[in-house]
């Protein structure tokens, strides 16, 4: 994707990193700011790359915390260290104020980015097998109902659609009735309908006061589900806070979007930043009236113009100078 940024860059705001619980706007437990998980100076080095480089944050009980970033940003490594799957090179993870140990696995549910299941087993048999790995847990009927698995219980794992498979993987993460749920890129590869259905499931789970830690590179997903987010790039957190607060802090303008073919020329010396983004031309302005007046003056058609507020995709671009999905 060709990017042509013609505006002044707002420098990444290191001042935006702060304690997550200061900016909650929609947490179901907004009255308390109890930390359930704390990540301190996490480092993970591989022979040829440092995947996680000094990451620190904390997660409030009952909140949904999102780790955002492009592929290779270090978010999956960070959550896998938190889950106890990967050993860190440095730093520590505290659960309920204590270093995590093997018993932590009884308390958490995990949905990996990609998980193969046993061939020739049905959905129910797979759920039953995972349920039996835990001493205590949820009633399978409840998990089945919550994840809408009733109609596919007898279906072979190999014959599930992408959405059905993700619902089953979510069900497996819930069989032990976890207090903390890790969801690593849970909707990658799903069609928009399946993705929205999955979001509804996560929202239902959140209503049970479970803490959710979500990694995603879908900004809409993070905006809709997360109380707090940390944006990662090159193994570091470059911004942290609630989505609305971060957007408010970084942006005072709105975006005017045009199909590229509507503006072939005429924007030279335009008083507001202009960005070519895919098939669109975007104009960023804090003063819509003035921008529209300028466009009319330059004989640019406004018929297909759209006005939208800034979103997390814009924020990522603002902070890193690159598209999130590249």
């Amino acid at each position, binding site marked *: 994707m060709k990017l042509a940024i013609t505006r002044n860059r707002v420098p990444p705001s290191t001042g935006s990193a702060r304690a997550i619980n200061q900016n909650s706007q929609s947490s179901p437990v907004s009255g308390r700011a109890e930390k359930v998980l704390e990540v301190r100076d996490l480092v993970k080095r591989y022979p040829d790359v440092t995947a996680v480089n000094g990451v620190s944050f904390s997660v409030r009980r009952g909140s949904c915390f999102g780790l955002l970033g492009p592929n290779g940003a270090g978010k999956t490594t960070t959550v896998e260290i938190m*889950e*106890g*799957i990967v050993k860190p090179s440095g730093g520590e993870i505290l659960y309920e104020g204590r270093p995590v140990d*093997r018993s932590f*696995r*009884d308390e*958490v549910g*995990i949905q*990996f980015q*990609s*998980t*193969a*299941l*046993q*061939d*020739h*087993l049905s959905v129910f*048999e*797979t759920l*039953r*097998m*995972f349920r*039996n*790995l*835990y*001493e205590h847990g949820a009633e399978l009927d409840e998990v089945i109902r919550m994840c809408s698995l009733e109609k596919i219980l007898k279906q072979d794992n190999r014959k599930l659609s992408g959405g059905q498979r993700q619902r089953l993987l979510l069900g*497996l993460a819930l069989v*032990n009735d976890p207090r903390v749920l890790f969801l690593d890129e849970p909707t990658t590869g799903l069609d928009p309908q399946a993705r929205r259905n999955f979001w509804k499931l996560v929202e239902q789970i959140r209503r049970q006061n479970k803490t959710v830690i979500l990694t995603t590179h879908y900004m809409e997903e993070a905006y809709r589900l997360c109380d707090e987010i940390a944006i990662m790039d090159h193994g570091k957190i470059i911004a942290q806070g609630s989505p609305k607060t971060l957007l408010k802090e970084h942006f005072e303008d709105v975006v005017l979007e045009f199909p590229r073919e509507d503006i072939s020329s005429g924007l030279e010396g335009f008083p507001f930043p202009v960005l070519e983004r895919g098939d669109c031309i975007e104009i960023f302005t804090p003063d819509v009236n003035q921008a529209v007046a300028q466009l009319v003056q330059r004989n640019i058609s406004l018929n297909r113009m759209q006005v939208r507020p800034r979103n997390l995709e814009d924020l990522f671009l603002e902070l890193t100078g690159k598209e999130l999905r590249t």
Partner: protein
Amino acid sequence: MIKRVLAVMSARNLEFLRDRSTLGWNIFLPVLLVLGLGFIFSGDGRPMYKVAVLQDAAEISIEAHPFLTTRYVQFFSVNDPEDAVRKIGRHKIDMLIQFQPSARYWVNPDSPKGYILERLLLQADPDIERAEVSGEAVRYVDWLLPGILGMNMMFSCLFGVGYVVVRYRKNGFLKRLNATPLRPIEFIVAQVLSRLILIMAVTMFVYAGTQYFIGFRMQGSLLTLFLVALTGSVSLISLGLLVAARVSSEELAGGILNMLTWPMMLVSGVWFSLEGTHPVIQQLAKIFPLTLILESARAVMLDGATLAQVMPQLGTLLAMSGIFLLIGATAFSWQND
């Protein structure tokens, strides 16, 4: 712990039983091999006369006796006369001969090969003392059946466990299990039990089927034979788990498993007796679990050996299993390194 082991074991059993092609292959291959090879080698397929000489190998010289210059006869040394006499009784060797302190030979009067060898020997040395050994001939198919069953167990245990664990690791299923309270030893025990139940069921089915359709010699106790198969399977499964403890490439696992199975198939006595082979080969064969399994299974089936008589082999197999499992559990990795 038991609940978790049973959960993983049951799931693996279902996966195996519903994989029709694998199940069919495990059952029908050994049956077809026994039927086919039994037919091909019916009568007696061994082309060579085998004469054991009761003497150290280094001391055997063709000048010692004119009979030793006879062509198309394989002479080899033995030090255990009782074992050699027993094998003459079973037609596994055709004659035993000694020159010191007095010239003497043992032959089975019911053995056609023994009869021909005796005629040749008496032409060369009419005064040599004769001793008779009686015993019913062991058909090749009787001798072959334990080999085929053992070979099937070997492939099923090594590839069936090793490959599956490597595939689980490669596709991330082990990583998912690692996110649960399941411990490596629990996973390993579940795999051992799952494969053990399946391979014992398949082996008993094939045993019963071949006994019904073609019949074969069974001199010893079925319970002893069951214990031999059980112990042998555990040792082979443990070896498969050892191979699969860390490997995440199916190609590498396949290479290592082939490197283990081919020598066992060739020198453990699946197809032909190791009698008369080079002593180094015989010693080498003793380090393989399959050799111990076949030795003890044939001792029970062909010679009616008791549990006490095969205990040395079973003890060694159990010790091997313990070592393989210990190293495998210690080195076990849930995911790609």
